[in-house]
């Protein structure tokens, strides 16, 4: 029987996994930008004075929140092209799935931030005859966003840990690299253990940093 843990396999795996880690990180950053943008959009639509817009966006948010990211990725990559008759790139589908899914979580975070801006600030900006766009961009958001940065950071790390799901649309992130190596060489222990360790190595220090940032921001 072959030895249980092979260091040769580890040294062969490492470059492949680092390649995969690069893809994982890039996908996470791109997905987070989408989530940040759509999260803000969702939060603003939810606050819309029009009841229909507010209710409809609430239904969309709840629907996305109540269904698994995995199935959403399937839907965007395999089903949507059948409906709109356009081929969708796997990177685009993966980033969109990750981004839209987390946009629903981030919209809650934005909402908390926006609710914390004192009412007087809205009234003052109306008294000064600011337009709607000006009120949002120059008065409300600059005060709403800094306090929620650490919470958004936590969602960034959560997103990072969910990227392996995109293995189902053959996105070459870390887990796919591990799986390919594992099945080619029958070395699953090393492959999956190392992916786990790399995730730990990347996510633990960053969550520590965000926790420190949180205490720092709370002290102000």
């Amino acid at each position, binding site marked *: 029987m072959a030895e249980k843990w092979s260091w040769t396999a580890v040294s062969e795996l490492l470059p492949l996994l680092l390649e995969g880690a690069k893809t994982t990180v890039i996908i996470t950053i791109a997905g987070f930008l989408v989530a940040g943008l759509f999260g803000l959009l969702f939060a603003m639509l939810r606050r819309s004075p029009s009841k229909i817009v507010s209710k409809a966006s609430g239904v969309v948010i709840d629907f996305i929140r109540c269904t698994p990211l995995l199935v959403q990725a399937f839907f965007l990559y395999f089903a949507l092209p059948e409906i709109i008759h356009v081929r969708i790139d796997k990177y685009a589908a993966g980033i969109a799935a990750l981004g839209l899914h987390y946009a629903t979580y981030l919209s809650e975070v934005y909402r908390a931030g926006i609710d914390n801006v004192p009412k007087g600030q809205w009234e003052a900006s109306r008294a000064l005859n600011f337009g709607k766009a000006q009120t949002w961009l120059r008065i409300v958001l600059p005060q709403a966003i800094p306090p929620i940065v650490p919470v958004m950071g936590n969602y960034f790390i959560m997103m990072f*840990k969910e990227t*392996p799901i995109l293995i189902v649309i053959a996105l070459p992130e870390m887990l796919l690299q591990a799986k390919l190596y594992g099945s080619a060489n029958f070395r699953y222990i090393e492959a999956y253990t190392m992916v786990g360790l790399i995730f730990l190595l990347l996510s633990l220090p960053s969550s520590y940093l965000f926790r420190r940032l949180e205490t720092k921001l709370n002290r102000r």
Partner: protein
Amino acid sequence: MPAPFDLLPLFGKGILVTLQLAAASAALAFVVSFVAGLSRLSKLRVLRWVTAGYVETFRGSSLLVQMFWFMYAFSILFEMRSMPPFLAGALAIGLNYGAYGSEIVRSAVKAVPKGQTEASVALNFTAFQRMRLVILPQAFRMMLPSFGNLLIELLKATSLASLITIGDMTYRANVINNTLYRTEEIYLILLLLYFVIAYPLLRLTRWYERNASAGRS
């Protein structure tokens, strides 16, 4: 039945498997949450460190990776016969969400006012009585909404188990799709199925959140 819904009966057994897997892993996660959450508050340093190690390991890496690890690495490493997929899935999900749940338990117990502990010491309660009769009943009320949200996340996470060949709804959808090629209808139904199961949980959690804070400052 109209077009997409004639597919619904094909999902039958998959729905049952999803619910079974969710129930099994939720039960494990619930027990683990309390055990790990309380032992992180223990006076014994060794116990605190061991649980902290467990919690950080499972929260710091990815659930799908953990599932693959239990399924394909664990049994080889410990020279067991290969692990049944259902067990590997329930273990990975239960231990992963248990790690998140333990933080809920820990923060809720810590949020119970200090005076309650002092009062129960003054009344000559033992540590066990204090936990069981004074602290936990109050902490439990605070935990409920967070546990509700965690349960929704856990339910969605069971879809990952399809990737280690557990025949849940998602797995069934893929199988049906491989023979019928009615992709858009199949995945739409799958999304709706998850929504129908998770949405009542979401409403219940929100309802409780509103009611628990009503009339209290």
